[in-house]
């Protein structure tokens, strides 16, 4: 391949923003065209699977989840994924998690908690390094990394995205919703706000979605849900029910 530009365009991880159709270069292998052949993992929510062009979480290229505070609320979106990945007997890495995952609950719904690896790097550089190591090593089925509200250069994020492209580790990066205006290298970018309402902002080879409200019955169908329990107690204001029993 003589033309270096053509070479770059034909890389499977190069994404062309606009295809005018009269280009002289044949871009058979760029990300736009062959993206549909790449592996995906069902999200566990049928509506979400329908909206993602791949039919599930893209296994390559990384997923960016924007949220407020510390992104703790986004985790329930990935519970079915964690259950499904438990079969792989590889690590499920949590890098700088906002709290400690509550193992009895996770175990109760089928997550192999012995696969959970909690990593607490001290600073930003170590966090990036640990995230990249975890994604790059073939020992993780999924890497959750809470990058927080810090500023990250595009090159730093691109490095993580390249690492995620190279193997079948699902890379999920939580960032602050204040970064929404910034350019992102990742394959899929979504927000969760308000609770259980997903909005796909960008996806490779597909369109942004509208609001997708995740139905409760899709999630862990076999588990009884607290908010489906007796109506007598529900929706009551604090003071009315909570007279402490002496």
């Amino acid at each position, binding site marked *: 391949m003589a033309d270096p530009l053509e070479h770059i365009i034909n890389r499977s991880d190069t994404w062309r923003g606009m295809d005018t159709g009269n280009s002289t270069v044949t871009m058979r292998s760029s990300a736009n065209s062959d993206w549909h052949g790449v592996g995906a993992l069902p999200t566990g929510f049928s509506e979400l699977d329908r909206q993602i062009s791949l039919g599930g979480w893209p296994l390559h290229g990384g997923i960016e989840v924007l949220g407020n505070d510390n992104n703790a609320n986004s985790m329930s979106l990935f519970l079915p994924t964690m259950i499904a990945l438990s079969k792989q007997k*590889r690590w499920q890495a949590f890098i700088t998690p906002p709290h400690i995952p509550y193992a009895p609950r996770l175990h*109760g719904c089928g997550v192999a908690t012995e696969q959970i690896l909690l990593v607490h790097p001290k600073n930003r550089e170590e966090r990036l390094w640990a995230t990249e190591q975890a994604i790059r090593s073939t020992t993780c089925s999924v890497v959750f990394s809470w990058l927080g509200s810090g500023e990250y250069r595009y090159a730093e994020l691109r490095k993580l995205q390249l690492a995620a492209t190279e193997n079948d580790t699902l890379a999920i990066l939580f960032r602050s919703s204040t970064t929404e205006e910034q350019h992102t290298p990742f394959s899929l970018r979504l927000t969760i706000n308000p609770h259980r309402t997903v909005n796909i902002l960008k996806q490779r080879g597909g369109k942004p979605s509208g609001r997708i409200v995740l139905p409760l019955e899709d999630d862990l169908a076999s588990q009884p849900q607290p908010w489906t329990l007796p109506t007598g107690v529900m929706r009551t204001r604090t003071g009315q029910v909570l007279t402490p029993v002496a």
Partner: protein
Amino acid sequence: MSLWLCFRLPQLPLECLPHRQEYPAVVLEHQRVAVANDAALAAGIKPGQSSSTVRALLDSPDLQLLERDRVQEAGALEQLACWAYSFTPTLERWQENGLQLEIGRCLKLYNGLERLVENAQTDLLQRGFTHRIGLASNRYAAELLSYGEDDGLHGVGQNLQERLAGIPLAILHRARGGEFSKALTSLENAGIQTLGELLRMPSSALGHRCGPAFQKWLKAIVATHDTVTHDFQPPHKFHDCLWFGFEIHNQAELHPGMQQLLQALTRFSRATQLQTTCIEWQMLRLHGVAETFEVRSSEAHNDPQRWFELSHLSLEKRNLGTDIEGLALHANHFNSQQATMTDLFGESHSREPLHNLIDRLRSRLGLQAVNQIALREAHLPEFSQYLTQGTAKLALPCKGQAQRPIWLFDEPNPVRLEGDVLHWNGPLKILLGPERLEDNWWLKPTSRDYYVAETEAGQPVWLFQDRYNKQWYIQGIMP
């Protein structure tokens, strides 16, 4: 027929002591020069001279006068014996500065004699030991031949008596630590100059003249077979060190040395069928240890590349001290080697072992930074799990966990009560509850009523009211 390879280390008293190679160095014993390096020899210093002569010849601040240390010499020789154990189990320390290796049985393994000798010599030179070699069917002849001028490999297949014939008697004096000096001197006075002439003498006359012990020794020198009764037993610990001969200024200069020592560790553990989970590095100054650090692996192995990678990560976060001139590697605890099963057809063969990631992260971030979660049977949520740096055991069956959070706070977060409405990032709306959890009555009795509530943003949270102090706390986030 046995084949013995003798390594004689004439400079061992000097080479086992830390010193600067580029400056003159002299090892003294009883105030006399025992060994001197090239720089000292060039200044006219010769073995046997007194210390005052040395000072007169070389009045320089760079002159290094070292006291002979036989303990160090024995230690260095022991280390070399461990090193040699990777070539053959049949070996012994010879005199005070030599090693004898029986290699007749392992030539095929090393693709021939030349290859084996070349490997061994390269290793020894890298370790900074000048040496002479001799090869013969018995240890005595091998040592004598190591005094020859050639490379030691010359004429190995030829008749032993012919090879020995040219050796002057003066060398035999040195060979047995002077045991037969008297007999040899009288033979020299009688006009016998070489070993060849000595061997041609009728044995009865020789026995009569020099005694049966001497005659027995001569027989041993020309023997075509020689063996030792016990194989070498390596120690259960690994210690090895390396002197660079110059000061280390940056970490990259340490890398070749680290790799070399790790190769030695691998050879040691391969030969002894042992593996370790922890190695210790020491940065050495000329006098004393500058810094020590441990490198751990969660899984015992003896892969030098993996150890190097982990050591490299640990080293990166350290400041290199000044005056570092040497490096030592210790491994004190070994387990017997585990046979590893390789899956021929499964997809797992393309993946690295699971523990590699933990080791790599811990080497850079520290042991505490990487944890697993283990479960414990307890009612109170904060006691029902704990973080561990060991391996998390398979979890106990957990039932009735549907109304439990997926995130647990490190500490319960106090909730404000305004009028009859609870506030935590806005007002909370109770969805479900209460569920009473009581425990810990033997220590500090705890009784809590747990509720599920919804924040203003619609996020369900898990909160409780302490029944003793009536305070409200949030303890986790529901899915």
